[in-house]
């Protein structure tokens, strides 16, 4: 799947890149390009694409995922080509209908193992081998001559590079989410002392929260809203990175994803609202490190897989289409007989956005993503 630098140039893709959109105009007004924003939302923990963008037209899908689909079957949000969005994506579906949202199915990075950490690092680095001091978003914004912003305490790998990136995070800590607390319960399973400490800590916190009605948590919606505001305030910040964890649904996936998708959907709506006018010049990329197993596991969840989906949305997007090539779900069509087979590289779609939205040239794209070529599809209106 990865294509070397030479193939990229030989393949004539560069020619397409340069002729598809008349970039000279945009380059003459570099500042107007800089006002075009890219927001990257990294979903940590591996989102199950088969439950977010449901391939209802696939003949094998319902048989394999019946237990997961039945509880939401009557509320699914229809897309083209027989796909449907999970009912929690209310805002995304509205944007889809107004041409500002498009999902890409069956994507993956260049990574083919199943470790969250390695996969996330590599996705942030955007290279075939992780370089911890060299992130894809930093390289891209460097080509543009702007700078990046991370909604984070520290500079994430994606924004590490030659130039300094800014970070912003509220000074109070994020309240630990139920997922982490659940994992701590497991960690303390054989230790009565720590189990009791944890339970009393949770009880006390919950009581406190009931009393204070709404303890201000820097949750995803809040961070997304702040992200939009900061992008509006700072002219030279051309891109930002947001993160959302909680996708590692090894058990009780239906309920957990109902909530997770809602958190994501509402956060994206907050981002749109706070961006205001700037939304029309914004492309939001939502990606995850890998997908999950096609089959349901023994605890009503799914395990680490390979192919997943990504979302491209925003006022600048040519939405109302489902992109990506569907590989099928029969046993022989799966990756290693268990995972959704990735048919395109996440980086290729990102490259297309960088070209079509920021006007990066073929040569510049090679410096950002030396291992892939951009997709020949129109994703930015």
């Amino acid at each position, binding site marked *: 799947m990865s294509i070397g630098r030479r193939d990229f140039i030989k393949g004539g893709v560069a020619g397409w890149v340069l002729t598809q959109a008349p970039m000279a105009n945009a380059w003459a007004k570099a500042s107007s390009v800089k006002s075009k924003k890219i927001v990257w939302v990294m979903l940590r923990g591996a989102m199950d694409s088969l439950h977010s963008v449901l391939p209802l037209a696939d003949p094998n899908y319902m048989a394999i995922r019946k237990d997961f689909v039945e509880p939401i079957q009557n509320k699914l949000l229809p897309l083209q080509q027989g796909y449907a969005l999970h009912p929690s994506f209310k805002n995304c579906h509205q944007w889809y209908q107004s041409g500002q949202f498009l999902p890409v199915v069956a994507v993956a990075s260049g990574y083919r193992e199943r470790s969250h950490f390695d996969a996330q690092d590599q996705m942030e680095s955007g290279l075939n081998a992780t370089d911890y001091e060299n992130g894809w978003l930093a390289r891209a914004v460097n080509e543009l001559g702007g700078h990046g912003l991370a909604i*984070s305490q520290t500079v994430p790998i994606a924004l590490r590079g030659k130039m300094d990136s800014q970070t912003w995070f509220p000074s109070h800590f994020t309240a*630990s989410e139920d997922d982490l607390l659940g994992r*701590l319960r497991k960690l303390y399973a054989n230790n009565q002392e720590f189990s009791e400490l944890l339970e009393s800590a949770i009880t006390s916190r919950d009581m406190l929260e009931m009393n204070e009605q709404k303890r201000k948590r820097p949750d995803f919606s809040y961070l997304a809203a702040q992200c939009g505001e900061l992008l509006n305030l700072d002219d030279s910040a051309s891109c930002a990175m947001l993160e959302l*964890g909680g*996708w*590692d649904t090894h058990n009780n996936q239906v309920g957990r994803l109902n909530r997770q998708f809602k958190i994501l959907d509402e956060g994206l709506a907050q981002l749109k609202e706070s961006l205001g006018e700037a939304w029309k010049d914004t492309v939001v990329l939502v990606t995850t490190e890998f997908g999950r197993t096609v089959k349901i596991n023994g605890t009503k969840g799914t395990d680490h897989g390979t192919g997943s989906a990504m979302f491209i949305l925003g006022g600048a997007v040519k939405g109302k289409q489902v992109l990506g090539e569907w590989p099928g779900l029969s046993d022989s069509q799966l990756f290693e007989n268990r995972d959704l087979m990735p048919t395109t590289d996440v980086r290729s779609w990102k490259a297309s956005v960088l070209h079509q939205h920021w006007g990066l040239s073929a040569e510049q794209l090679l410096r950002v993503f030396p291992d892939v070529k951009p997709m020949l599809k129109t994703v930015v209106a």
Partner: protein
Amino acid sequence: MLSSQAFIAANRFGYGADQTILEQAGTEPKAWLLQQLDVANIAKELASFDNAWSSKTAIKSMAIYRQKKKQDKVNAKKASMQPSMQAAPDDEKMMMLNSDSIQKQMNKSAAKSINLTIAHQITTQNPFYWRLVDFFSNHFSVSASGQIMRALAPTLENEGIAPNISGYFSEMLVAVESHPAMLIYLNNEQSVGPNSKFGQRAKGKKGLNENLAREILELHTLGVDAGYDQSDVTELARAITGWGVDNNAKKNAGFTFRAGFHEPGKRRVFGRSYKSGGVEQGIAILKDLAEDPKTAEHVSRKLVTHFVSDQAPQEIVDQMVSIWASTKGYLPKVIEAMILHPLSWSETPEKFKTPREFMISTCKACDIKRLRPDFIKSLTILGQKPFAAGSPAGYKDTQEYWAGPRAMMGRIEWAEHASKFAKLAPMEIATGALGPQLNKLTQLQISRAESKQQAVTLFLMSPEFQKR
């Protein structure tokens, strides 16, 4: 092969393991701990560590600050009497800014000094030495309340405690009780003997302050139930009248003995008599108190409770008390008795880390050199802000104090936050810090975590990392 004893040495008696420490602790962990208390070694350690903030500088800055402040007031008054002058409000502002900026500078220097110590503790090759400094700094706790104490508090540890770990307890005791930070914190610099020259002139308007004397007996030496009574407190208070602080920026700027404040006459404290005299009278009492078996028992039990177990094994304490008696409270020998005792090396870690130990060991394990919020703010969030125990008794040293529900949730949230600063691979961090003490279940949960950050959080919150 690395023994589990090397890891116990690094964790229970230090801030955790790293490659160099494990190599040095290696096969002789006890010897490794004890050589850290060697006089020459400590001198070298302190020389390598340049902490410029001193009580002298603090007192001098304070004197200038007070002077400036007075001047600011005069200027403000002048300005208000000349309402026609348009520029007055700005002048006033600028003058205020001047004393303000001195104040800011002082607070910044004191905070820097604290942060510097912590940063040093993360990487030091003498972690046991520094754990002892932390212990005695809390034993002789001073709180940074009020401007002068904010500036002075950290200097007590640097000047009174750190240079005196490798010596007699009496030496440390005298250094601490005569240190400006302690004298001001417990008001002894205002204590006046009623029959002293100054006391007689003041005609009852100035008198004795027992604050420091009481805490010396109750907290620093004998312990609350040792059998001393009010007359011992009063007698000790009389003996140390005149122990004060010279605030003159141009002169000594430090401890001074004011003979004019000193209560004349013989003293009797805890069954012993002391002839009349000046500063040497108080020193003689402190020396006897330092060598008293009750003090030996009190301080030894606190040491064992701090390092080994909330239920300090009496056998270790007894051993230390007997060495205390035979060496007149020579600290390296007393501490050696604890280190050589087999009960100090139980395979089960029994001590729940204090927030400070938790924070420093976290930074060490994850190779974090800088935190945001910084060390002081992190400790504030975790409930153990340096020099803010708010009581001369210092912070408590047992699990029920640190593992309350709120504190526990705070620890989880802080761990989740701090883990963002960790760059190493989670399993590498975990095995590097705990070696054979790392639990199988923890390994499993680390490997199943959904992100690097979450994996590190789980490791930091694992029972085997929370305890030492």
